[in-house]
């Protein structure tokens, strides 16, 4: 492929101007893929200490407490249990209501697949860069419009953390960003820190269909897509080796290549792969490829046939980020079933709900309820305290945020939702959404807060 040839040529003819640096100094320096040119400017809002009293608590770690209390102070969860002593903070009567960790969506395109989607967005979409099947050098955050109306809707429905991924047209689609859906002038004002850097890859119909279009230079088949990945990682392995040699002072440092160094970061285990894949054979092929190159695919996204190969998923330590009920719209989605999440859960596979949609991303709790309902049809009963993990602690772990969010336990950031009813009921409304111990959404406040710049002054819904 053209772009690969170009990369190889640069590699071969590079002007090696880099001066030798002492090995000790090099060792101290971060690897090039660990550089963060776009640091977060997120400032936690002023926390409001609260004691939520008498709620049904699903703690996200698998425990349910009926009539339980949650104490939030200075942005953190301080205590979870029954009959907590109020140290003198605002007390919220949560009897009859439910408290869960904030919902985490690991698959969003908000800010790039914007609402409304107008012709300019359709013709030259920011969802993914399509200059090549390999756009591993791209960072989706440099495209995200923080004024997309979708962020507010997600927040008001209990979402407190979301990963924005590039689209699935390129094979190496670029880096993801994890954000809080709060009002900010730029995406960096929403950007989460402390997570593991994510990276999007894609297999199957999307990349091959793009490659098959005459003007594009990607592979045109499933086998071509896997071969393209393999060559990419072979090149990255060589590149990584050169970097290591240079670091040890036994070789020249290669010229910087943003694509190769990102893939090298995957091989180093510093960057996590989120792979868009539907069919069992596509998933199995990709898992074999990861094994060959000694890295773990963090999650298969969509994974509509993962239920056919649970042992492969489990042994690879790869999670499945799934829908409840998307199916049928393309050939590789024919065999999607609603009972997939409960089936994978029972098989011991790490599973979670994901959205891929600003509409369904508002209701991952309902997606979990639908999946569990389908599980009951085949005799798999998943209780609420286990279902909640599909939208809280499992996604937190996938993002590398499992020491920070996704669980209601002392020391965790106070990202939580106070629901008017069981979060698995369609009638449940998030009464209160807290991010970092601050109230980010309060249903008792008048409509219209917050409102994006886009909606401001337009005769919109608000």
């Amino acid at each position, binding site marked *: 492929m053209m772009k690969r040839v170009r990369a190889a040529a640069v590699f071969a003819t590079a002007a090696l101007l880099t001066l030798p640096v002492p090995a000790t100094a090099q060792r101290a320096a971060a690897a090039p893929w660990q550089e963060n040119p776009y640091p977060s400017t997120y400032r936690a809002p002023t926390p409001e200490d609260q004691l939520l009293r008498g709620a049904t608590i699903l703690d996200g770690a698998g425990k349910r407490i009926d009539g339980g209390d949650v104490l939030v102070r200075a942005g953190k969860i301080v205590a979870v249990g029954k009959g907590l002593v109020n140290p003198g903070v605002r007390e919220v009567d949560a009897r009859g209501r439910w408290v869960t960790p904030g919902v985490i969506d690991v698959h969003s395109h908000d800010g790039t697949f914007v609402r409304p989607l107008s012709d300019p967005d359709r013709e030259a979409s920011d969802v993914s860069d399509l200059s090549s099947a390999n756009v591993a050098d791209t960072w989706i955050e440099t495209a995200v419009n923080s004024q997309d109306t979708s962020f507010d*809707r997600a927040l008001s429905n209990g979402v407190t953390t979301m990963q924005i991924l590039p689209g699935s047209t390129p094979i190496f689609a670029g880096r993801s960003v994890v954000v809080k859906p709060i009002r900010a002038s730029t995406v960096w004002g929403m950007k989460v820190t402390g997570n593991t850097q994510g990276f999007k890859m894609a297999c199957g119909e999307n990349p091959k269909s793009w490659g098959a279009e005459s003007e594009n230079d990607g592979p045109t088949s499933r086998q071509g897509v896997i071969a393209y990945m393999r060559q990419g990682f072979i090149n990255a392995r060589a590149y990584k080796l050169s970097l290591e040699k240079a670091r040890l002072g036994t070789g020249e440092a290669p010229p910087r290549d943003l694509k190769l160094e990102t893939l090298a970061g995957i091989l180093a285990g510093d960057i996590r792969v989120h792979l868009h894949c539907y069919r069992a054979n596509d998933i199995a092929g990709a898992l074999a490829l990861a094994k060959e190159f000694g890295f773990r695919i963090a999650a298969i996204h969509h994974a509509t046939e993962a239920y056919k190969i649970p042992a492969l998923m489990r042994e690879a330590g790869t999670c499945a980020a799934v829908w409840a009920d998307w199916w049928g*719209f393309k050939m590789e989605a024919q065999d999607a079933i609603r009972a997939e999440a409960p*089936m994978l859960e029972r098989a011991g596979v790490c599973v979670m709900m994901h959205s891929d949609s600003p509409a369904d991303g508002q209701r991952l709790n309902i997606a979990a309820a639908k999946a*569990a309902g389908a599980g009951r049809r085949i005799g798999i009963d998943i209780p609420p305290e286990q279902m909640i993990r599909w939208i809280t602690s499992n996604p937190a772990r996938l993002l590398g945020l499992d020491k920070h969010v996704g669980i209601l336990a002392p020391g965790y950031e106070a990202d939580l939702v106070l629901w008017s009813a069981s979060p698995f009921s*369609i*009638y449940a409304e998030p009464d209160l959404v807290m991010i970092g111990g601050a109230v980010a959404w309060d249903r008792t406040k008048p409509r219209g807060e917050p409102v994006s710049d886009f909606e401001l002054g337009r005769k919109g819904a608000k």
Partner: protein
Amino acid sequence: MRKLAIMLALATTAPVSAQTIVVTHAEAWTMDSAEPVRDATIVIESGRIVSVTAGGEVPGGATVIDARGKPVTPGFVNGATQLGLIEVRSASETSDESSADDRNAGFSPARALNGNSTLVSLARADGLTRALVYPSPSRQPVFSGEPVMARLREGADILDRGDLAVYATIGGGAWTKLGSRAQQWTVLRNALTEAKRAAASDVTQGPAKGRGSGGPPPARGRRPGENPIRGVIAGDIPLAIQTHRESDILQAIALTSDFKIRVVIVGGAEAWRVADALAAAKIGVVLDPQANLPFTFDQLGARQDSAAILARAGVPVAIGLVGGSIHMNYNAGLALREGAGIAVANGLPWFDGLRAVTVNPLAIWGRGGGTLAPGSDADLVVWDGDPLEPSTNALAVVIEGKQVSTRSRQDLLAERYKDTRP
């Protein structure tokens, strides 16, 4: 008496032949009142509801479905889908939703309906018994064709009734051939004016040969929606307009007084802004209650309480189009229930939510029914919980007096792989 234990839908066996079906111990939502008949015995004979009686007797020889106190409702009706016309969206050879015939915009998708579609059996398993099926835009702006009602009985033939309306689509970018929506409205008005003139001349001169509803079609096919649009002028069928923006809704309202016709709005993201005017014009709205994001500039006003606002103003509201292209056909039953649940969560009274998926869509599309009143069509569903909760399963589905299968291809796949160990 043959007693069928109602367990999960998968375990239910359908009776071989069932002239008389009786549902016992039902929480029966007949739709006569906002309260159910408790411990109801529902007697079904020859495809009709005979009676719904609290603690009623079970006639001998009947097939019995014991509802065990669970809710029983009329079969659910989706107010706007393309069910039976689409199989795999990305595979054009499996799609029959639009006519590409330049000569003829009058297009009924009736002959394309496929009851063997995997989408249909799944929707049936989700408690959907009927669905309005509308065609996509034709090559004759602003018309799509004539929607049909599908009835999700078993077998290939799921046509309930065709030619229910004339279906038009109007909005920003809807017709590149016409450009501005102003021109789209002009084309629609011209077609109505012409049909009105033709109808008037029929009254004075009798129907033109070959042009009346009884005669053969003209040699080159009828002109854009010609015969059906005369049905609109005659008041036999409504003009359905899929449109969203407030300014367009106002244009649609104006048609009712200018042409004395019945209009149905499909979509109607901003219909809530003119709820009172819609009520006064007796315009029903088929909407997607989950839509709260503007997919286009026409939908800036989309909000989830629009069903509640419209119903409060007296506008008949039915639910359809729920979840857009991802769900409206692929989950025509489940998404419908989820949509109704969202409407209720946002202020629509629960019973009105139930009406919006039973009585209202059938009334808006001119079919009537959707109740469990004696004499009505026996389409009903036994649920294992609140049917507006998407986690609820349909335990038994009866269509035209016959218990139908609630097993879908998804069930078969789940059963095949549920104990898989590899």
